[in-house]
């Protein structure tokens, strides 16, 4: 009997009931990775020996009667921008290719404390900049539903890993859509929590005021389980809320949505949407309505017209500063050079990819004296207006429904030289980061070509529970996310 395809909650239950040993679970996962990752390239580092060693330790702890944690035996994968002590953490960049952090990210500590087994680090767009996981120094990751297509990005490796059944839970980070968009393109759940819900300590920064870690899963229960493990106050992250968090599993007991108001954002209709995506949104709305929710149209005019512009000023501005530390002096790539300036120039030229350089240049420009007011300051004002628009909307409705991405998975190479078009992939997701809100991508069906279509649910600040309740109702109708063939079907 194989454990393949089980949810994290099921694995934890079965390990607790001694139906499986942790070692068996981990071996099953490693085998799945071994058979698919040559094709998918979802992983940058696979820590086989370390994982088996840890599994054995957990097994002997269980045997000696030690109480299991909420995730004991659950194999997980974390995006390669989260620090893992002694394990390479590359951000998919040449500049960090040999870097092994001397410390663990807060989320890594939390996962291990809960009993999870980290199998490795997933592929991503370099420094989380991109929407396709093509901008990786380790080569593009492929979509497990169609291996000629991208899995989305920047957390494409984690999304592909969960969709292809490597593991039930993987962590991603979301700065402008980097969890939700790949979840959408891979047909699974991807949750970006409220800014400040989960500690960023140990997450290698792209844009500090927008970055947030979140889980990918194939069931809503696994999302709630993940939040229970990861969401907590952390003194090491001053932007992380110090409030106590609820038990997120409690929100899944909701059966009816009567009394709930769901907002549909009027402006998304102005966009050139793939018709299957519009259909997915309609389907989700219908299910929610049948469960008792009232649908109401809301308008986010500034958000939908100016969000993208504000985002592509603020995010690169912060990135240009966050990425300045990679100078070849202390760690990471360091090119031979005659003097200090050429050390900087050579190292950064060789170490960063095109997209990262593009954003560093943009960010440096918008912060320069003489341009700051026109760009950065204006963008911050727009950001405030966007936050107000959302606050206004949430005074009327409990959640908002929007598409996650304007299109399903596109082909590898299709947009890689068209940055503006690529940036457009985040148009529905990035306003949520600007306002610091929680957003969840759920699967809303498939296109005629069999590509998953995502629908986004957005909640007010700290409204994860509300979103999970609604997602739970949807899941009862639609079933959990399906496991993708991961390229095996193509071979047959």
């Amino acid at each position: 009997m194989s454990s393949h395809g089980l949810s994290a909650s099921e694995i934890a239950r079965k390990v607790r009931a001694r139906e499986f040993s942790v070692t068996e679970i981990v071996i099953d996962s490693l085998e799945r990775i071994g058979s698919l990752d040559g094709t998918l390239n979802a992983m940058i580092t696979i820590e086989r020996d370390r994982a088996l060693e840890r599994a054995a330790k957990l097994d002997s702890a269980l045997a000696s009667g030690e109480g299991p944690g909420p995730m004991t035996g659950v194999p997980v994968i974390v995006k390669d921008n989260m620090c893992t002590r002694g394990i390479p953490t590359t951000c998919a960049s040449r500049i960090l290719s040999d870097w092994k952090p001397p410390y663990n990210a807060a989320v890594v500590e939390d996962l291990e404390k809960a009993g999870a087994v980290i199998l490795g680090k997933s592929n991503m767009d370099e420094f989380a900049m991109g929407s396709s996981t093509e901008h990786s120094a380790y080569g593009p990751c492929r979509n497990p539903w169609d291996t000629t297509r991208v899995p989305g990005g920047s957390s494409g490796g984690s999304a592909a890993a969960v969709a292809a059944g490597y593991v039930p839970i993987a962590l991603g980070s979301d700065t402008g859509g980097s969890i939700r968009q790949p979840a959408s393109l891979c047909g699974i759940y991807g949750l970006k929590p409220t800014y400040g819900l989960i500690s960023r300590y140990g997450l290698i920064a792209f844009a500090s005021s927008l970055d947030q870690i979140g889980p990918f899963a194939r069931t809503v229960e696994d999302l709630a389980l993940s939040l229970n493990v990861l969401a907590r106050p952390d003194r090491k992250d001053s932007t992380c809320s110090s409030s106590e968090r609820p038990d997120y599993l409690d929100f899944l007991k909701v059966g009816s949505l009567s009394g709930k108001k769901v907002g549909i954002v009027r402006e998304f209709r102005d966009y050139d949407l793939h018709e299957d995506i519009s259909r997915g949104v309609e389907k989700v709305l219908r299910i929610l309505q049948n469960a008792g929710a009232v649908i109401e149209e809301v308008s986010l005019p500034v958000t939908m017209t100016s969000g993208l512009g504000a985002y592509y000023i603020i995010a690169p501005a912060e990135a240009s500063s966050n990425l300045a530390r990679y100078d070849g002096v202390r760690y990471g790539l360091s090119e031979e050079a005659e003097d200090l300036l050429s050390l900087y120039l050579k190292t950064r030229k060789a170490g960063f990819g095109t997209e990262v350089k593009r954003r560093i240049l943009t960010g440096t420009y918008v912060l320069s004296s003489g341009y700051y007011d026109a760009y950065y300051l204006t963008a911050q004002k727009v950001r405030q207006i966007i936050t107000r628009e959302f606050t206004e909307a949430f005074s009327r409705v409990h959640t908002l429904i929007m598409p996650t991405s304007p299109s399903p998975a596109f082909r590898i190479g299709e947009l890689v030289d068209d940055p503006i078009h690529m940036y457009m992939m985040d148009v529905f997701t990035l306003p949520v980061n600007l306002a610091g809100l929680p957003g969840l991508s759920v699967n809303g069906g498939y296109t005629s070509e069999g590509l998953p279509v995502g629908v986004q649910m957005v909640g007010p600040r700290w409204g994860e529970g509300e979103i999970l309740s609604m997602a739970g109702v949807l899941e009862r109708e639609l079933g959990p996310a399906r496991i993708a063939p991961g390229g095996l079907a193509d071979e047959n």
Partner: protein
Amino acid sequence: MKTEFFPVIGLEIHVQLNTLSKLFCPCSTAYIGTVPNTNICPVCLGLPGTLPVLNGKVVEYSVITALALNCRINRATRFHRKNYFYPDLPKAYQISQYDLPVGEDGYIYIRGEGGDMKRIGIIRLHLEEDAGKLVHSAADGRLAGASASYVDYNRAGVPLAEIVSAPDLSSPSEAKEYVSLLRQLVRYLGVSDGDMEKGSMRVDANISVKCSDGRWGDRSEIKNMNSLRALERALSFEIKRQTAILEEGGTVLQETRHWNDSEGRTISSRSKEEAHDYRYFPEPDLPPLFLPEGFVEEMEQTLPEMPWVRKSRFIRDYSLSETDVAVITESPDLADLFERCVREGASSERSANWIRTEVLRVVNERKTSVGDLPLSSHVLAQLLSMIDSGKLSNTAAKEVFDCIIETGAGVEEALKVCNLQSGGISGSQLVEIIRDILEKNSSVVETIRSGEDGNGKKSKFLQGLVMRETRGQADPEEVRMLLQELIES
């Protein structure tokens, strides 16, 4: 009419706050004399993924300092990133403050050039983190000629308060006066050692020269002045240099200049065109800081007596000279020692005198601080009271004092070590000694008796002999009277 030139000087002073841990991480702030790169952690090394956490003690220290400088405290403040590349700056940006510093619009009074009190404006006091230290392999530790450079990050993240004065200083000596006062102030507040040589207080000067014909030269920023003397010399040099340019009808360039102490001149290091664009923007890793209700008031309560207040109180209450008071109140440790001695019964005049001379002598000899001497105010007061009451001569007391400093002993013990009697030598014991001396010096006694000691020199000589014999333990007045009595009898 002769053209006149007036220097216009403003100072930017970085004061290292002496908290135990760094500004944004729990690492120790000890970086002098520590093994390089031992007081470091992922946060102050700026490793990828790390985040700053503000040290609350630093906020307290900065607010206390800003209050002492009569600044308006910003209840809502925030941090900015100052971006530039340099190997000693681990994140390639310095977390600093920009538009909302801790304190603004303060002032402090110094004794101005003409002797009157002069108000010097304080534009702002803001917090920022220190950088690491570059160590070059050249023999003299300089960059020139070095084959390699090393970085020590022990200092990276040490908290600094930058205090920016208004351009209200008009001479090198006023600048020196202002820096001395600030140094004294931070020591009184207990927020910094204020040591320029060690770098815990670093002074940069902005200086320009204004001409009576209306011309006003651009300012230059002078760096690398590591002592008060260097500050005075550098400013004097710069005034001469800029004045000479203006006298010839030239233009003073806006630039950064480096003070070279051994050559005694400033050297241009960076012009305005080469100036950095620091691309300041709000630090997204730290939320804005809101000082809680009542915090500023609470800090106000903890303010000690200001040095200038203490000074005038000492002059008034202890009727001491201004020069004495200036020395005694220079450091709070000295002033405290003085006041405790007086409270424990020593006379104020003798306490002041001894602290100025003996205490400071051993402090300088031992290159230590008052607080580190093995000397309590109780012991010093006891010793000084013995002089006051005539039980010990000043000379003998010095011997005892040295013994106390040497061994850490109490007064009684030190007296024993020095072979001295605690009660002094008087009465019959003293008479014995005097008789003995008179016998041995009968010719001198004869001279006195014959009335040929008009100027009293011979009597003084005998008195000296008695004091020497009693090793200062006799009351000079008693000796004089007994001598007179015994010679005449």
